Structure formats: C-alpha cells, structure tokens
C-alpha cells in the first residue's frame, strides 16, 4: 500500500518537489485567488479533487490511449472534471463560486495538471497516481494558504473574514496595506516563500 516509491509520490510534492515552489507551475491561479483565505482553500480543494481523479482515470486508461491523441484525451478528462466541480460549487457554495468565478474553469489550463498526467499518470498504476495527485494538490494548496494568510492578514486585517487586528491598532494609526490585495504582491510573497524554502533546502539551490 505505502511502499517507499508510493510514499515518495505522496510526500515529495509537499516540499522537495513542490509544484509551485520548485517546479514553478500553477503560478497564475496562485496569484489570482489568494487575496483571502476562503477562496484559496476552496480552490486548493478543487485542484486536489480534479488532480487526484484525473490522475486515476488517466492511469486506468493509460494502456488504451493512442499516443498521438494522448494530450487531447487528458484535456477532455480534466475539462470534464473541472466542469463537474464548477457546477457543484454553483449548486452548493454559490458565494465562493462567485469569488472564484473564472479561476475554477482555468484549472483546466493549470500546468500542474497536465504536468502530472503526462509525467506520472501515463506511466504508473492507479494507486500511486492517486497519491501523486493528492500530494501535488496538497503541495499547491499549502503554498496557496501561506500566501493567502499573509495577504489577507496584512491587506484586510482579517482571517477567513474575521477581524484579527484589533480596532485600537487602527485608532493608533495602523492601516491595512492595500497593495497586498493586488496580484503583484502575491508574486512577491511567493518569491519570499521560495527564498525561505531554498535557504532551508540546500540541495535545491542552483549554482
């Protein structure tokens, strides 16, 4: 069940082989949905679901898929799953689906998905593929949450919509940093996280 190889498939993407921090994939949506924590967490869960299931489906199909049209097959599977997630969100969590708007649809073009399908699911059996999908999804989600935590805290003074910076701070001249809400600050926050991450993992540093 959890052989060494499977463990690697699951744990590597969390840190050493993190899709956002190391492979620099999925940056676009990481910038867009991290202005506050709630959409970030829903986006993370959506990516985990889509990634895990598309990995499993492609892994089941891998022996039947004609090589010439494999990218098309992968896209159709991902697109179908994304539309399902989107429709479920509209039906059961309308407020968040409004906030995520176009970005759930854009999971289709999220490089992490195509990257994992092509690099892993096409050559491995369903169970390791599933673990790989969950692991990469989690790795993406963790980064999203860290970025969203700082952006929401410094940009709006709230966490999950609850005010955490007390009123007296504002009374004494503290101000929310509006810049944090804008996409460029997400990029800078991701950059800082990559910096911290690399200084802790020496083997990732390029010379």
């Amino acid at each position, binding site marked *: 069940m959890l052989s060494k190889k499977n463990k690697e498939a699951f744990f590597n993407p969390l840190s050493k082989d993190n899709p956002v921090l190391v492979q620099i994939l999925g940056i676009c949506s990481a910038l867009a949905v991290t202005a506050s924590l709630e959409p970030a967490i829903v986006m993370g869960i959506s990516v985990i679901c889509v990634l895990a299931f598309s990995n499993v489906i492609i892994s089941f199909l891998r022996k039947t898929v*004609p090589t010439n049209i494999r990218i*098309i*097959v992968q896209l*159709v599977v991902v697109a179908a799953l994304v*539309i*399902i997630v989107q*429709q479920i969100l509209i039906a059961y969590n*309308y407020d968040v689906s409004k906030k995520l708007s176009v970005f759930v649809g854009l999971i289709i073009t999220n490089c992490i998905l195509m990257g994992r399908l092509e690099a892993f699911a096409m050559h491995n059996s369903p169970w390791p593929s599933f673990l790989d999908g969950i692991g990469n999804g989690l790795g993406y989600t963790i980064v999203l949450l860290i970025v969203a935590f700082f952006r929401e805290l410094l940009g709006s003074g709230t966490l999950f919509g609850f005010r955490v910076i007390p009123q007296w701070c504002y009374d004494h001249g503290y101000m929310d940093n509006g810049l944090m*809400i804008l996409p460029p600050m997400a990029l800078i926050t991701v950059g800082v996280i990559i910096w911290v991450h690399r200084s802790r993992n020496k083997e990732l540093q390029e010379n």
Partner: protein
Amino acid sequence: MNKNSNLYQILYAAVMVLLVGTLLAFIYMALKPKQNENIANDTRKQILSALHVASPAEAQIKETYEKYIVQDLLVDKDGNIIDSTHNVAFNVDMKKNVKLAERQLPVMKCKLDDGSIKYVLPVYGAGLWGPIWGYIAVNDDGNTIYGANFSHEGETPGLGARIAEQPFQDEFKDKHLFVDGEFKVVQVLKKGQKTTNGAEQIDALTGATITSRGVSDMMADCLAPYQAFLKKLQGAEAMPEPAAIEEITDENQTE
C-alpha cells in the same frame, strides 16, 4: 489491435467525447434547479440589503423576501402601472433589458416592519471590467433614497470591487433623485469636483475612477425612465389619495 491506426484513434476520441458529453449533460440537468434557486436567492439577498433588512440564513431568504416585498409592478414611461402579476418585476432579466425603447421598468413595492412603503428600482450598467448592477430603494416620497446595493461581476478587488461594500452603499442613504422638483440624480464624483447641474453628490472611490463613473452613469441612465412614476409618487404624497376624494364627493351627492 493497432493503437496507432487511424480508425482506432477516431473511434477512441468519438466514444470518449460521447461518454463525457452524456455525463456532463446529466450532471447539468441534475444540478440546474438548485443552481437557479441559488442565483434567485442571491438576487433576493441584494434586494433585501438595499432595504437594510439584515441578511437572513440561507433557508429563510425566500420567506423573508416574500414577507417584505408586497407587490411587483411593471410601469411604463408615463408612470402607469401596466402589470402587477406576482414576481413580474423580479423575473425581469436586466441583462437583456438595456435598449431604452423596449425597456421594461420593474418596480418592487415593499413594506418594512415599521409600516413604511419603499419602492425598489433595479439598475444595470457597465463598470471597468464587466457589468455592474444594483438595487435602489426609494422612499414613498418618490425622491429620497432609502438604501442602495451594488454588485459587480469582476471589478478590481480592493478598488472598484468596493462598490459592493457597505460604506460606499451607505453614502447613498438620504440622497435625492430630484432637486427642486427637477430630475437630477445624485452623482458619484471625486472629492473637489462639483456637479454641473446642481445635483447632490457622493465621493467616488479612490483608485476606481471608471467604476465610480459607471455607478454614476448607471444610476442616471436607469432611473431616468422612472421620472414619471416617481413624480406620481410625489404627487400622491402631496394630495390626498384619489380614492378618498371620490368617497367625499359620493357623500356630498347623497346628502
């Protein structure tokens, strides 16, 4: 079987697309009623917010809405009521209701807890990135704004998106649509600017020039056709109810 033969590839793609298409169609049909309800409830929430009714729990939104909204009306440019079927105003699709010549003019008549009557007028316009829309609640004097609620599809977070936040919307309260009997809708202008026609004004949002102007234009454009209707409301307040006059004359005759 040769996986790379043309026949295999074409069949593979065709079968796959057919299966996926069927699955998606089925899911869409299954979730549609729930989704429509969510969208309708979201609209109801916006209307209630314009009336300063605290947003109820998801399950009670419809009930609360029906409690406060007593009548739906469609009026014409001369202020006559042409339709008052249940939910007729609520069902008007503002997105398709743009052309001035064919525009339907929905009005929702509401009765609040304190017994006062308000009229909610929907507005629809353009922001910077996409459509913006809102609901303006007007007092029964046909002039004073009681409350406003604005929504948007994709204005810049932290800038234009602030039209959907309470502080901006609260500024509209107690502003007027008429000045000295002339139709002059309150405008959204930068600090320091003055309206040219003497209308009242509200401070624009910093860093959101186009969205602020969009709100201003939307209000002017969408409320203008209601002039006659609002005038009638003003007239009704100044004079006794027409029904009351008739009663008096009847009495006089019998005597």
